[in-house]
Each structure stands twice: as C-alpha cells, then as structure tokens.
C-alpha cells in the first residue's frame, strides 16, 4: 500500500481545491488532512488523538505556512528535529511569497517551497508535479517506512 500524503491546511476552500488538484493529478496515495499544526504533529508522532494510528510516516507532507496553534514553520522545525521524522519530505504550500519565510523554510530544511498560484490550472499542475515527484518518483530515504518494511 502506498504511503499517504499528509496535507496540513486550515482553510477549507484551499483544502478542497488542493484535494481536487491532487485528485486530478491521479495520484493513488491516500491523503490525510489536518487543519492545524498541533494536530499534524500529533498525527506524525502518533500522540494524543492519533496515538493508536498505524505506524508509518507519510510519503510527503504538504504544509501550509500559516496555521492555527502551531504554524507551518514550527511544524517543519519539529519534523526536522524528530529523528523518526527527519527524512520525511516536506513541501511548503503557501500563499506567501515573503522572502523571510522562504529563507526560514530553507534554513529549516524544506524540500520544496510552492507559492500557490492564483490560477487554478496552474495550481493543479503545481500540485501534480509535487505529488508525482515526492509521492511516487522519489525513492524514499533509508529508514523511512517502506525501507524498513523490507526488513520485516
């Protein structure tokens, strides 16, 4: 089974549009949606509400920058500081083209930074490209779920 894509997005419309875009890019991965950074971290760490979820990291995290409670940059930082999560690809998916955010994201080790285009068609193609690259094409680094499963 393909690893899921974790989408962290608080805006319901953006959520819907992103999901549509992912759908149109015809990826087979499941998409897990979280509406704030805190929930996303709980999910990733299998804590709180998600303590009982099945083991395994997502194929890619699509992370909105501006999130309630714990913002995208903080989620990214936490992911990179958690050994078990460190190698999960993270893509910042954001409205902002603020240079400072971009710099900070790369400092924290983001894999890609995408400013959501206003045009929906462009948006779809961006998402599709991202999905293809990170969820399907990219060979997961050693230690990720799929790699470790081979040793099962």
């Amino acid at each position, binding site marked *: 089974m393909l690893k899921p894509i974790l989408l962290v997005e608080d805006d319901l419309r953006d959520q819907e549009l992103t999901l549509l875009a992912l759908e149109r890019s015809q990826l087979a991965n499941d998409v897990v949606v979280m509406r704030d950074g805190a929930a996303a971290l709980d999910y990733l760490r299998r804590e709180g509400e998600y303590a009982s979820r099945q083991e395994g990291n997502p194929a890619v995290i699509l992370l909105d920058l501006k999130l309630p409670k714990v913002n995208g940059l903080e989620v990214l930082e936490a992911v990179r500081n958690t050994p078990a999560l460190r190698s999960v690809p993270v893509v910042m998916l954001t*409205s902002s083209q603020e240079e400072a955010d971009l710099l900070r994201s790369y400092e924290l080790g983001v894999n890609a930074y995408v400013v959501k285009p206003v045009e929906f068609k462009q948006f779809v193609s961006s998402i599709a490209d991202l999905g293809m690259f990170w969820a399907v094409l990219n060979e997961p680094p050693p230690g990720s779920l799929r790699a470790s499963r081979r040793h099962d």
Partner: protein
Amino acid sequence: MTPTPDLTLCDIEPIRVPGAIQSHGRMLVLDGATLALRAWSANWAGEGLQAEAAARALAALDALDAQVLRATPADGSAVQVGSLRSGDRVQDCWAHRNATQLIVECEPQAGPRRHEAPIYTVARDFLPRLQAARTLQALAQLAACELQRLTGFGRSLVYRFDEDGHGEVLGEALEPGYDSYLGLHFPAADIPKQARALYLANRFRLIPDATYQPVPLLAAADGPAVHEIDLSQAFLRSVSPVHLEYMRNMGTLASLSVSIVVDGRLWGLASCHDHAPRLLDADMRAACTHLGQLLSMQVEALQANAEVAARLELRHWTLQLVSQLADSDASLRRILHEPALLLRMARATGAAVVLDEQVWTTGETPPQEALLELAGWIAGMGTEVYESAQIAAHYPPAAAWQPTAAGVLAISISQVHRHVLLWFRPEVVQTVTWAGDPRKPSSPTDAAGRIHPRRSFERWAEQIGGRCLPWSAAETAAVAELRQALIGIVLRRAEELAAMASELGRANKELEAFSYTVSHDLRAPMRHIAGYVDLVMDAEGAVLSERAHRYMHHVKDAAAFAGQLVDALLDFSRMGRTALNLKRVDTDSLVQGLVREITRHERKRQIEWHVEAGLPALTADPLLLQVAVRNLIGNAVKYSRDRSPAVVHVRAVRNAQGQGLEVQDNGVGFQMQYVGKLFNVFQRLHQSEEFEGTGIGLANVKRIVERHGGSVWARGEPGQGATFGFVLPGSGQNAQAIPSPAIPSGHA
C-alpha cells in the same frame, strides 16, 4: 643684515645687583643672621677716604639698636629702625631683608615735619573720588592729578601696557613747560623685561637726581662681592645708566614710578618726571605707594565689573541663540536663522557654519572654498576654541581676505568631523602714535659699545594693519559656552534620533506584519474565486450559456488581476524594505541580457534595438537595479507595440549627479503635464484595456533609484514616444534616501 641692537639688550643688565647706590643716601649691608657689617656705601666719608668710610659705617651700625634691627620682618618689607645724628644733621634709617642680608638705608631727614602725613589725605580725599570714577581713563586722570599734587613733580603720567608690552598713556597732569604725552604709546623696549619683573616686586621707585654719580658699595675683607648684593628692594638702588640716559633724553632729572598691579600682572605704571632734581621723604613715598595700591585695586574692580557685565550680556545672547536652536530641529545650520544675534555675541561682522563639505555664511566672510580649508585647518588643531586677531600671521592663506576677515574666532563642535562655527572681524588699520619711532632706536650703541636709549621723543605715527580688534576673554568664554550648549543640543538630538529610529523600526515591523498578512490573506480569496470559477466551468461548462461563459471569464480575469495587484504591491513594499546589497553592476551585460529575454518573448514583434556601446558600471544592488532597468525597457517595448518597427534606444547618461541609463521608445508617449504623476503608485496614463499592467512599475523604478540616492526623469510627447532615465550617485555617496529603519541622514 646685521642684527639691530636695541634696548632689549637691557634685559641682560644687572639691575638687581648694581653694586652701587644713588648718592642721596647711605647704606649698610649686614649679615642677615649675625648683623655683622658686610658692606657699606663709599659715601660714609669723602671721596678717596675708604678707611674712614669703613670706620664711620661701623660707628653708624653701633649707633643703631641691634634689637630693633633684628626685629626687621623677614618678608622684605622696610621698617624704620631709628635715626643717626651727626652735628645738626639727622638721617632717618630704614631696614629690610633680602635673602641673606639686612640692608640699612639712611637718608637725610626731610625739612620740618608736616602736621599731617600725606597718606591721610590720600585715604580721605582721593579714595572717594577714585571710587566714583567709572572709566579707566577717569581713574588714570584722577591718579595722575593726585600724584602730581602730592609730589609736586612737573609731569605725572598714568599708563597701561597692552599684551605686547607697549605702553599707552591714559592720564596726565602737567605743569607749564612740560610736553604732553597723553595718548602716546611707548614701545615695549622702553621698559626692559627684567625691569618689569622688578617693578612687580618693588612697587615704588624714586630717582631724585638723574645726574647723580653712583656711589659704589665697599665690602668688608671677608664680605660678599658687591655685585652679589641684592638691592632690588632698596630705595637707594642705583639704576641702570641706560635708564638715566633715557631720563636725561626726556629732559627729566627726577622721576618716580609706582607700579599698578592687577591680577598679579604689571598692568601699568604711574610715573612722574621733573626737570629739576626732587627728593621725596619717607612719608611722601608711603603716600605714593598707597596711592598706587588704591589705583591697582580700583582698576581691578573696574575691570572685573566690566568683565562681569560683558559676560552677562554675552551670556544673555548665547542663551537666546541656544534657546531658539533648541526649539528647532537642532541642525547647526539653524544657528544662522538669527544672523544678527550670532554676529552680536562675538561682536563679529561675519560668521560661517561649516559642516563637513557644506558652508553657510552670514555677513562678510572669506569665500566658500577658503572657509572649508580654514575650518579644516582649525579642526585639525584639535582645540575647542580657536581665536586669533591676526589670522594671517598663523595661517598664510588668510592674507588673501585680510580686509574682511583679519581675525577669526572659531569653535570646533566635533572631534571627528569638520563641524566648525567661525566668526570674523575685519582688519582695523590703527594709527598708533609712538613717543619716538620704535623701529629706530637712535644710535643704539656708541663707540664704546654702550647702549643708549633713544634721544628723540618726537611723536611718530605708525599704521598698524593685518589685525582686528582683539577677541576679549568674555567673547572667547561666550563662544566656548555656546559650544558646550551646542554639544548638549546635538547630543540630545542624537538621542531623539535614536528614539525615532527605534520608533521607525517598530513601525517598520508593524508594516512588515501587515504586508505579511495581506500577502497571505488577500491572495487566498483571489485564488479561491479563480479556482471555483474554473471548477464551475469544468463541471458545468457544457450547460452554461455563452453569456455565462463570458461572465465567468470576467470573474476569473478580475481575480487574476487582483492577485497580480497584490503581488505587485507586495513587491513594491519589499523594494523599500530589503537592505541594499551594493556591488559593481555592469549595465552593459545587464541590458544585453534583458534585450535578449524580451526579444524571445516578443517574437511576433519587430523591435529595432539601439543599445549604445560602453554603458556605465554602477554601484547598486544588482537585483533591484535589474528590476528597475527591466521595468524601463519593458515599458518601452510595451508602449511601442503599435509601431512597426518599434525603436528602442538605450543610452548612457553621465552628469554631475552621477551615472545612469536612459531608455527611449517611439511609442504612444505621454503629455508632459502629467509627468509628475507618472512615478506614483497605481498611476496610469492609459486605459487599462489599451495597456495591461498594475501601474506600479515606474513607482518601483523611482523607489529603487531613490534608495540608491539617485534620481529619475521622464520626457514625452503624445504619439512621439517617451524617454525615461535615471542616474545613481558615484560610489561612496549613496544615501538611503528612503530611510526605513535607518537614522535619517542630515546633520545635527
């Protein structure tokens, strides 16, 4: 040229230890401790009777009371120690001590005793009149008259020394037959330096008869060398033969002088002359000494009062100047907003403020370049206050503007920068009337090599130029005080600026937060509108009418445009906020690259490019400069789209402000009356249907150029094309014209 001997040679004459006394009295020199007789004047007996003189001196000593002699105070003051009687002649004896000896001076008792000592009339009558005098001239005149009345000398003068030691006669009392010296100046050389020192120590001198034959001192066999006996406090001290000759040249046989000592300095002399010999008794000498002391105190008081009054007045003006400065933005240049006050406080006729390379002036001053150099020279000395009444003597270039600014008073505000305030006074060509030509000591040496003072006392007028009225101590103090106040204001201003900078920084942070929110939250709804419209068209496109399709397109376009606007606005605000990263940018390759890129995009169009060779290298932020140049070239291409071919020129611009580029097209142009609006945000001169765009491009260009300290311009004619250009200042002069968090430039 052989050195001209002058009377300053007198500076080496042994006037303190002449080894001789004047002939109107007799002297005993005793050992200070044992009171043993060490030396005596030869005139205790007749000429050639040395043994006799020794015997009589010893006898005289015996006749005096040793107890009384021993009681002579150690401080050098003279006390009466008794009298000697031989036949019907009585001699009064006075004693004082020098470092090692006790000197006894004997003089014939004056005629019949007065019923009242003259010192009482001085205290009773003269003092109140002296106290009523309000000017130095009045004081001098009163003292001269009193001295003449007391002593009966034919001429009485009171004169003052200037800084260079020249004397000026301020008061005079004359009997008939005496020449007036009032208003005359005596050159400093007339009173040798060591005589001045002596006058400070011994405040009263009398030479009863300038024709006297000096009486040598004779020493005991085991006594001191007579030329080692210090007679500086002895009233019988024999004076320099040069001085006697000077007196005789003046037609003066008797003279007395009283020192006027103010603030510990020899301020002047009261001096009397008579054509005939004149002896004054001890009471009279005491009265004259007392008169000198009263005059000294009164001069001191008058000067102190004048000084205080002057300082108060100057302080008042200084405060006025400072208070109006403190109310302003405190830039030093503001001090010139009250030119009258600024000039008055230093009694100057011109003033200038020099701040680094800038100069502001009021009144009569040297030319700007000269001011810059002078200010640099003064600042280089590192002194806080500089003053010279004769600047050209210290700073040769000043000779060029001597008539307007012979003297300079200046304060240096900064240790680091050339921040100097200067005041100027014009040359005052003074006519000084010397008593004789000070430049020609007549026959200074005779055949025997002896010095003669001048023989002529005819008036001789000399023009003295190259200097201004001297800057007074009060004026110097006032500008020093102004300097302190200015530094205080400047410091306070710096604090305010620092506070303003942090306030600006805070505002800037808020603005950043605001635009961050805008960028995030404003773009999202645009995206949603566009996204959902797309979805509707995808899903329901087939059932929508033609008209509905058109409407949906409008919605989409509008959303897309709003998105572009938000992006452009954010770019614009970012342009003003990001720090400049200055580098050398080769605009030649920058322009070539942009031309290639645009040509690629506009394949369908015919564009004729004329890019001048050798475009300048500019010091600029490469990214920002690229945005600016791209905008200019992009505009040229955009607004010439109706032309075939479109002709675009890119040229180098080099002028006084710096270097830059100019881009010319043959497009639609614009009306010059709107040129001022062109560079404003969202300002468009064309219908948006005609030419797409957000209306921010030129505002961006302007902001970028101004952040580099440069300037932009535009020229155009409707239908005739337009030309846009900019220049950036040369490296090192870039100013942060749009300050954001930086402290606004400018001088405080």
